[in-house]
């Protein structure tokens, strides 16, 4: 094996691709070669690096230095200063003041532990960090019942938003006798501000595949579908590539490892409707129908895709599974809280110093996440509120900064963890504007099937637009609550049941803003 003095990890994701990362890497390689450093400095194209800097980002090991927004014209300086002379280029560093360094403790990561470290397009690198050991164990050394029991014991809860215990979900489908069962991966990440699944898939596609395989084995499914957003081109390419590699290595296909178990994984590209993140609408869409939700019961676990028992799990949920199976539930339980073990991947954006992606123990406070993982507020701004959980989430005021972030704790405050999106607002932002934006989103994304949601989302949007324009009254504000409350109680699916969250939290926590704007 070659020995390199330094490794430059280049994050390849949608953002860096847009910034021209492929040309950049070629030029960087040229410059390294020009200085005859190719035997000393290794350039590694990898997934998202875990921090969300602007443009093209680099992490250099073992120095543990992060560069952001690096451009072609910076290459000569970077190579001659850092890689030739060993002097860090301060002006390009993620935090030039040097005060903030996002927590990149890889030991504390589960889902993102390989992300930004291995080449996501190489199955060998995944195997090199212990990949597919869990699959081998699940297939050859564990019974399906044993896998379900282990996942149940781990307390893993669905990371898609609702937090339903994954093991319990599997246990509904596993014992059913059916000529066909399916695993469906919900990769239709549509919650505004959420892009964690994209980065999980871009950074470590094999980990997701391994999770799917274990789930399929546990419930007896021989076919799995990954229903993925059409916009996630890089994910789709990497997953397809990874599936091909698995087939080549005999990890997928017929009679895997001579176990008698068959499994095929296929990708289905969604057309971008928010409601298709709802599991039954997703199934309808997968069947080729209009993405309208179905009535439950029967639940998909009993009667799902093409009426066969179907387990629908979120990307992040399944990405946790290989760790649990490989290391045992006990290890997993060391993370997070007793009610919600494990970690949570957040996407933090808005007015923080370093918007990005982080994986944090369940139960960490909002304050911890913002300060320790996102560098606190953007310089010169004060915290006003955070929208937690996307459009279907709640607007939390400053007094809630120390609430623990997990499904259980947030529920006690009528809040939700949801998808794990955290949108931070500074003191100059208007809550009314934020609410307007959320309600416009719901109006646009309602499928229109049921009248509470179809008419309600339009009424709410009309009312908030009127209020925003300074033409509303407090009666209109109250009417919004009445309508949203009725929608929550009578809508067919979770979409229509959701707007009340943002509306109620906005009005309760920032009532004075509504009083101000309606009394003008």
């Amino acid at each position, binding site marked *: 094996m070659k020995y390199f003095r330094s490794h430059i990890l280049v994050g390849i994701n949608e953002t860096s691709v847009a910034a021209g990362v492929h040309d950049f890497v070629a030029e960087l390689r040229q410059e390294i070669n020009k200085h005859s450093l190719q035997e000393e400095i290794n350039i590694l194209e990898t997934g998202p690096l875990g921090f969300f800097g602007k443009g093209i980002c680099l992490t250099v090991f073992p120095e543990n230095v992060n560069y952001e927004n690096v451009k072609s014209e910076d290459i000569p300086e970077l190579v001659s200063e850092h890689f030739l002379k060993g002097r860090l280029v301060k002006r390009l560093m993620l935090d030039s003041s040097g005060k903030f360094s996002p927590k990149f403790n890889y030991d504390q990561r589960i889902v993102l532990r390989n992300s930004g470290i291995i080449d996501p397009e190489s199955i060998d690198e995944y195997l090199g960090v212990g990949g597919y050991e869990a699959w081998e164990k699940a297939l050859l050394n564990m019974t399906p019942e044993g896998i379900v029991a282990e996942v149940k014991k781990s307390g893993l809860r669905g990371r898609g938003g609702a937090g339903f215990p994954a093991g319990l979900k599997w246990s509904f489908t596993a014992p059913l006798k059916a000529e066909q069962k399916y695993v469906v991966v919900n990769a239709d990440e549509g919650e505004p501000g959420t892009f964690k699944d994209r980065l999980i898939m871009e950074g470590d596609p094999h980990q997701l595949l391994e999770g799917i395989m274990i789930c399929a084995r546990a419930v007896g499914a021989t076919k799995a579908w990954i229903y993925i957003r059409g916009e996630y081109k890089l994910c789709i390419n990497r997953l397809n590539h990874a599936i091909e590699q698995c087939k080549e290595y005999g990890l997928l296909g017929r009679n895997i490892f001579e176990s008698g178990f068959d499994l095929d994984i296929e990708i289905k590209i969604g057309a971008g409707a928010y409601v298709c993140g709802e599991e039954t609408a997703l199934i309808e869409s997968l069947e080729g129908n209009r993405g309208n939700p179905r009535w439950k019961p029967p639940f998909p676990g009993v009667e799902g895709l093409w009426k066969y028992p179907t387990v629908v799990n979120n990307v992040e949920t399944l990405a946790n599974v290989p760790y649990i199976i490989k290391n045992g539930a006990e290890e997993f339980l060391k993370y997070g809280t007793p009610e919600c073990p494990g970690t949570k991947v957040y996407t933090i954006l808005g007015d923080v110093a370093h918007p990005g992606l982080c994986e944090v123990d369940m139960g960490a406070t909002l304050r911890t996440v913002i300060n320790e993982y996102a560098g606190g507020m953007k310089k010169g701004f004060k915290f006003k509120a955070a929208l937690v959980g996307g459009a279907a989430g709640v607007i939390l005021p400053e007094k809630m900064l120390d609430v623990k972030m997990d499904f259980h704790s947030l529920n006690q405050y009528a809040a939700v963890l949801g998808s794990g999106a955290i949108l931070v607002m500074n003191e100059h932002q208007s809550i009314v504007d934020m609410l307007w934006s959320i309600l416009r989103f719901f109006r646009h994304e309602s499928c229109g099937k049921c*009248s509470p949601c179809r008419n309600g989302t339009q009424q709410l949007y009309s009312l908030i637009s009127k209020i925003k324009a300074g033409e509303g009254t407090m009666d209109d504000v109250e009417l919004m609550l009445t309508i949203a409350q009725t929608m929550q109680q009578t809508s067919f699916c979770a979409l229509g049941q959701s707007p009340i969250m943002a509306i109620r939290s906005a009005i309760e926590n920032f009532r004075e803003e509504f009083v101000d704007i309606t009394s003008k």
Partner: protein
Amino acid sequence: MAKTVNVWIDGVHLEVPDSMTIIEAADKQGINIPRLCYHPDLPPTANCGVCVVEITGNPVPKRACCTPVAEGMKITTNTNKLRAYRKTLVEMILSNHEVVCPTCAANNKCELQSLANNLGVDPDALPSILQKKKVDDSSFSIIRDVNKCIACGRCVTVCNEVQTVYALTFSDRGIDAHIDTAFGLGMANSPCVNCGQCTVYCPTGALREKSEIDAVWEAILDPDKHVIVQEAPAIRVSLAEEFGMELGTVTAKKMYAALRKIGFDSIMDTNFTADLTIMEEGTECVAKLKSGSKRPLITSCSPGWIKFMETYYPDLADCVSTAKSPMSMFGALSKTYYAQEQKIDPAKIVSVAIMPCTAKKFEARRPELKDSGFQDTDYVLTTREFIRMIKEAGIDFKHVKEEEADAGMSFYTGAGTIFGATGGVMEAAIRSAYTLVTGQELEAIDIQAVRGLEGVKEATIPVPGFGDLKVAVAHGLSNARIVMDKIREGLATKGESPWHFVEIMACPGGCVGGGGQPYGNNMAMRARRGQGLYQEDKNLPIRKSHHNPEVKRIYERFIGEPNSPLAHKLLHTHYFKRSVSNGQVVEEVTHKHH
């Protein structure tokens, strides 16, 4: 056997099958949970949310229409919260609905109107969010007014699941979601067969027939025109319910009186041509049986069925009787036989048909139905339009004195009148075909096996000199598919149809359940109307078509004999293949005898 479970609805204990939904259990007990999109004949669309109820242990109310009962369930249907939700829901629906109740075709029959009234809703509680859209009036039969549509989805369900026509679907999303034909091309350019079941199940009047009332009034009031009218069998049992009489009462003679008061010049009856149809179709059937043909004969009275056949089963068009429908036979005869007998210039004759059917409007405009030298039938009014005309003319229908029809083309037998119920054409045909084959009279003429609302009915009738006559009856087009698929399969695999003679009606229940029948329809009501027809059959002095004296007379004086060249010219037709995507004619697939 279904398991039963114990549930409590508003404290009342019920033991019901576990296959029931909450709303079915409540209905059984006479507890009327407010509802809008739910209809007992259709699978729930669960769109409106009005039927939400509270179930102990559930934090959020559940829809009664699609939540199955479960052991020990405690259900509350009326709380202050639920009433508030329902009110808000209906206010929201009204805010996205064109509220023009006084002039709406569904006024007083509108389920949204009565729900709003029952709940005490203020129609102006919320600002209107209605985005006006163009009314689809492309079809000869059906108008679709999206502005009155509340997107309950019943029409989509009935079109796709009950009728399997697939003309209607949801389009667009969110507030723009609406019901539409493919690519928004309009009903006329869709596979719509004009059956009109969507209009019957529409709760609001967003779907209705294309009205011809004004044109008919104009003809009636034109002194140069001679307006002759015919009424389908089902009409006489579908008026009572609208005028404060018992559902299903036979009101033929009040009907004639009302028509005369309205001002029609000649009042005849479609039942007469129903009897005539039996002679033509029965003769065709017997000829087919005697020839040893392995292909069945299928009835042709129902225009929704005919267009459906032309669209989805054109390969079997040669199995369908060439006999025109009773309406179109009447139309052709009104401008030939009748004109000749009455010595009236046929150019001055306006032939009007009152039908329980929206598809008859399309049939009347078929270009090939001009054998009299004119368009055989000029105007078609649905039952609903006829009722409106009676009301418009200020006729107190309940108390109007009974009158007879005019002579010539109005006498009918019991066989003619049961055409209006599913299985009726088959029963009438058997009564006469038996005689045509054996030369003897059939004694047991109440053929129960072909009566009733079962989707596909089969019977075997021993006919001396022929053997077992195997027949099938289907009503509703999803049932028609079952029968047609079996025929297609039988012919393909064994070279033989499973049946000799098949009756198909497009509408569930037959014509009494037609698409032109009064709003506020359900299968139970259709059954009652059908029973009215069977009652009339029983009471009539003559119950076999071949004994109808006016039918005998028309053969003697005009047509000669059944299936004669003149009969073929005036009383028979031919069929086309139609495009599945837009319903337009592709090619002629059977040809007219000359």
